[in-house]
């Protein structure tokens, strides 16, 4: 019980609270929001963005950021389509491995520029956002394949994307496994703790003997692999791919991570928070049409949620500082 409490402490608890509130209000307006199918869809939709958020968390904790996630995801989604055009019976596992490998390669490219060449991550990934998306479109126009439909993919692959075990969608299971592994590694492994140290104070971390460059590089590769996997899962879930898959996803991912309590300047936050943030934003997005709000409010809601989250954090931080100052002056008096 104590463990559960500490697991759901602070930020996570308040997101769960917000989640319950959104679900409650929406269910009152339309009871079908909370039926089995509705919940199933909700988790499916949140799974892909949750995978991206887990990867992004690893980077944001180290005071880095990856704005190229949408482009990498689009690239691996398109890759899986192309693999099926080459051979419609390509095994699902092979497609996934290829997607993970390509994603990791993109991550390694970003990571090498950040960790070895010391170019700030914001600039690198702003640049690769263009480069990867351009490769994606270039590939599509070079091969003349602008759209790949479900009919061209293997039935196994599509069945995997929409399938479930014991009522839990495959995609959500994968996200859950990634969450548990990343959460455990960040919390218990030495390399995981190093990421927090690097984010808190890069210079101090280096002086303390932490191989900062190697850790950051690895974080980029792991994050890239997760993004690559997310792209393949997107293809298997939606069954339609073009070169624009994932465009603009970086906003949703960064919003999810920040709403989940990961500090944008590194050093604090959990993957559980980020995943809950992703779940909350997805839930709000699904609730909007039911509450009679047009779907194109989503972008504004993502942005507003991000601003609200950092403002609340700041307010709490200021109050805490105030309280500490008072306590100190009382003690002195």
């Amino acid at each position: 019980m104590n463990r559960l409490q500490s697991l759901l402490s602070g930020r996570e608890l308040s997101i769960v609270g917000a989640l319950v509130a959104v679900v409650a209000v929406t269910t009152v307006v339309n009871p079908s929001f909370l039926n089995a199918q509705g919940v199933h869809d909700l988790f499916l939709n949140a799974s892909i963005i949750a995978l991206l958020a887990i990867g992004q968390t690893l980077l944001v904790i180290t005071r880095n950021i990856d704005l190229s996630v949408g482009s990498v995801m689009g690239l691996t989604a398109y890759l899986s389509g192309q693999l099926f055009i080459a051979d419609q019976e390509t095994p699902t596992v092979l497609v996934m491995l290829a997607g993970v490998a390509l994603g990791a390669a993109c991550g390694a490219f970003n990571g090498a520029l950040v960790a070895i060449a010391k170019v700030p991550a914001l600039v690198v990934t702003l640049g690769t956002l263009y480069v990867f998306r351009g490769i994606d479109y270039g590939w599509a126009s070079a091969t003349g394949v602008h759209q790949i439909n479900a009919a061209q993919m293997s039935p196994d692959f599509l069945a995997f994307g929409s399938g479930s075990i014991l009522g839990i969608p495959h995609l959500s299971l994968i996200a859950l496994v990634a969450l548990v592994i990343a959460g455990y590694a960040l919390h218990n492994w030495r390399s995981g703790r190093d990421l927090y140290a690097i984010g808190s104070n890069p210079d101090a971390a280096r002086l303390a003997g932490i191989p900062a460059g190697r850790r950051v590089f690895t974080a980029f590769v792991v994050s890239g692999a997760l993004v690559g996997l997310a792209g393949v899962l997107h293809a298997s879930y939606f069954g339609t791919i073009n070169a624009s898959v994932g465009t603009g996803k970086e906003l949703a991912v960064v919003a999810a991570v920040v709403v989940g309590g990961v500090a944008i300047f590194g050093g604090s936050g959990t993957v559980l928070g980020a995943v809950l943030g992703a779940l909350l934003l997805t839930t709000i997005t699904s609730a909007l049409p039911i509450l009679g709000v047009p779907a194109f409010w989503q972008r504004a809601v993502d942005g507003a949620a991000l601003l609200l989250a950092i403002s609340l954090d700041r307010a709490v931080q200021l109050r805490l500082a105030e309280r500490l100052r008072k306590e100190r002056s009382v003690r002195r008096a």
Partner: protein
Amino acid sequence: MREKILRWESILLLLVVAVFAWGWQSTPGFAEADNLSFLLLDYTEVALLALALLPIILTGQIDLSVASILGFCSALTGVLWNAGMAFETIVPLVLLAGAVLGSLNAALIVRFGLPALAVTIGTLGLYRGLAYIVLGDGAVTGFPDSYRPFATDTVAGSFLPYATLLVLVVAALAAVVVHHTPIGRSLYAIGLGEQTARFSGIRVDRLKFTLYIVSGVLCAIASLVYTLRYNSARADNAYGMELIAVAAVLLGGVSIFGGRGTVVGVGSALLLMAGLRNVLFLNDVTNEIQNVINGLLLIISVLVPVVAGLLRRRRHPVAAAATEQPPQQTLPDPVAASTAHGSPEEDQR
């Protein structure tokens, strides 16, 4: 002396000349007046956004919401025009809207002390969302012919478009303010160390606040040019343009950490990108490949000074170590700070 010749701005200017010479030699129609006008017009809005970003990045901050402000102002122009408002009334209202959106950024960053990166990623989404909320996903067209020439025509008898003239005026103003006034010196001071700047009596907060408002107004001006130029007000106007503007500023030799960069550098980078885009366009290179080139240019522009710094340190370890920033400095990365870019101080000597 060698440092001066090898300055980033000089390299950029050489590259600009090279690109234009290449276009002139290899591409029929490149040097025609019509094409040059088009080349310049095509980068009007990017140039205005880049000039809005320049002073902000000089202070070590960022504004990723510029293109979204442009989008919102364009959508607002469409809505007001549809409502039957006169264009003379719309212009000040749109400028005001830009100022308001800019000051919301400023309030969150300056008054509330939130990180600029997080805030403007948030308002990037929020303002673009608001644009869709006010206009929906349709388009408003049919703006009056009496105003469109301002955004499409050239100054009588030359290839210089009026809109480019506007950019030149803004750039000249920026150059004067940034390089020749106490305000400009303060921008560099804040970028090199905000605490120090504060303690030396610079009104850091007020200056930063003003920068974001000015940025909002410049984005609003850019939105008017964009709307009239394409004769179309849409919520997704200039989607993603913040990336091109940031790329231009950084390619222009402005340090992402602040405190380093010149208006001439950014101007050359804009000319370089506009020229390259035009030559590639005339040679039927697709937009997507151009985006790859833009992205690579951005990465290379930041990579070159870092690599140059590393090489210099290897060749003259002692001299380089002496000029290197001490680790106590609050600069985020001592390696990236000791770049090959000309520092602003060199201008004064």
